[in-house]
């Protein structure tokens, strides 16, 4: 079990402040949805937490260690990262892609590749090349390649945003159902955020503006402020529906 914490993160690029002293402590287990309007800094936060982008100031701690002090191999097998958009440059096969994901860990559990291949229903697709796969199949391949090492921390930048609803639900379920693990997912669909995740963090202009259990945070009016709309909150049998109100407040 490994949590991840951002301490006073500052990211400036080309004169713009993308993260503005953001602090956030996540985990060590559970599912966290990160929501916020476009340009809030969600993707930047995930990249800094993964170690892909370096912050101008501030630190990231993974478990009881500084992210910068981890070796590349330790970092890659501790933190799984799912990008918003993924397109390999070479037309690799499904099995080759999963294998590349597995090879980043030097302590891979026996049978992990077979288990991941089976879990994401890729067994029959092993020899198929990336260019021949559908969007849903591609999402499953990426999930298998990232999750094959069973990383204690998963940071996902809504990898399913462009999929149809059934495949999107499949992906969200795979991301959130990880017992004794931490899953942090940038979610664009607020209903999914409040239905599938235990905790929701609202980010705007590079800062955390609201943070709490999904059940209680749903009532928080700061969500309306951040998205600049008024939401109607409708309870459904299995979650919440947030509908942007069509009448002026």
């Amino acid at each position: 079990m490994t949590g991840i914490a951002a301490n006073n993160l500052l990211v400036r690029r080309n004169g713009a402040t993308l993260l503005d002293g953001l602090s956030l402590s996540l985990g060590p287990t559970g599912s966290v949805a990160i929501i916020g309007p476009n340009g809030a800094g969600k993707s930047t936060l995930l990249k800094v937490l993964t170690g892909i982008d370096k912050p101008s100031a501030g630190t990231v701690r993974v478990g009881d260690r500084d992210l910068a002090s981890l070796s590349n191999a330790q970092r890659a097998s501790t933190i799984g990262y799912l990008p918003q958009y993924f397109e390999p440059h070479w037309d690799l096969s499904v099995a080759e892609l999963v294998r590349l994901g597995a090879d980043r860990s030097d302590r891979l559990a026996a049978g992990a590749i077979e288990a991941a291949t089976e879990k994401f229903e890729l067994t029959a697709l092993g020899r198929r090349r990336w260019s021949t796969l559908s969007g849903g199949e591609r999402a499953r391949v990426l999930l298998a390649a990232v999750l094959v090492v069973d990383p204690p921390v998963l940071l996902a930048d809504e990898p399913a945003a462009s999929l149809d609803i059934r495949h999107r639900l499949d992906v969200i379920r795979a991301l959130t159902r990880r017992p004794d693990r931490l899953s942090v997912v940038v979610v664009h669909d607020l209903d999914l955020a409040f239905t599938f995740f235990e905790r929701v963090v609202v980010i705007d202009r590079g800062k955390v503006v609201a943070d709490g259990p999904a059940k209680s945070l749903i009532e928080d009016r700061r969500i309306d402020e951040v998205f600049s709309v008024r939401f109607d909150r409708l309870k459904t049998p299995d979650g919440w529906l947030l509908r942007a109100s069509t009448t002026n407040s």
Partner: protein
Amino acid sequence: MRVWLLLVLALLLSIVIGAAAGHDWMSPADLLRALAGDTDLRSRLLIDWRLPRVLAAAFVGALLGLGGTVFQGVFRNPLAEPYLLGSAGGAALGATVALLVPLAAPQSLVLPVLAFAGAWAATMLVIGISRVAGAVDAAGMLLAGVAVAAVLGALRSFLMLALSDETVSLQIVLSWVLGGVQTPTWPILGLLAAISVACLALTLMLAKRLDVLGLGETMAIAFGLNVNRFIAFAVLAGSVVVAAAVAFGGLVAFVGLASPHIARWLVGPLHRPLLPASALVGAIVVTVADAIARSALPPAEIPLGLVTAVAGGPFFILLLARRLRA
């Protein structure tokens, strides 16, 4: 497995054809007699001249295949080529200096050394420029490479015009710039073989990380690759390979571009099989091209680089067209 067998058989066949081809055509029987230790004139011609030349062509082709594969892998661009990136241009400039400037050491020693130095310096320059410009990514390096290659080409032409007072030396440089494998002695061929094996080993060490880099820079970092450091190292390794190819074969165009493509069709895009396959394809291509260069217009010899350019140019256009359509 069958693909590898076919590649090796094709290489052996092209070597036999290469040994047979020339101003004076030999039969396979001549070749067998020569290999069995016969000492008549034809056999000695084969053993002392034809065979070393053919094998040198094969090794130069293998090096070009390896170099092209590394550069395409690093820049994740199937159109990347050593000649686009300054390293071949740097090697050519170093070799031109060796050919035109009278130096104390023997030319056979100075030329490879200066070619290495030129390729290395040009590559460092490309890396340096892209660093200073703040564009260490693949596209930035490629553009810096194009600019450096253009400057180096101009410098080489200037040297050729300024330093050659007799037409003979200009012709030597020109024929070398146009590409051509010199006939080596057996010890030099042994050196070339050792360099080629070392280059294969060096590039195979990069194979796994080239695969990871092929996932894109973001995913590569997430999968634990130190992307900037690896790119700089791989470019350097690639330029060592290219310098070796240029030192022994001059400027042979398009083989470094085409071999990885053909190899990818045969064994797929993973670099561990791709590198040796691309070396084999390059060896076959250059061996056959060299045979054509020696035998198409007897008694004259066409520069090897012209043969590969005539065949490779349309290949490049085909790739470009396919890429633009896709």
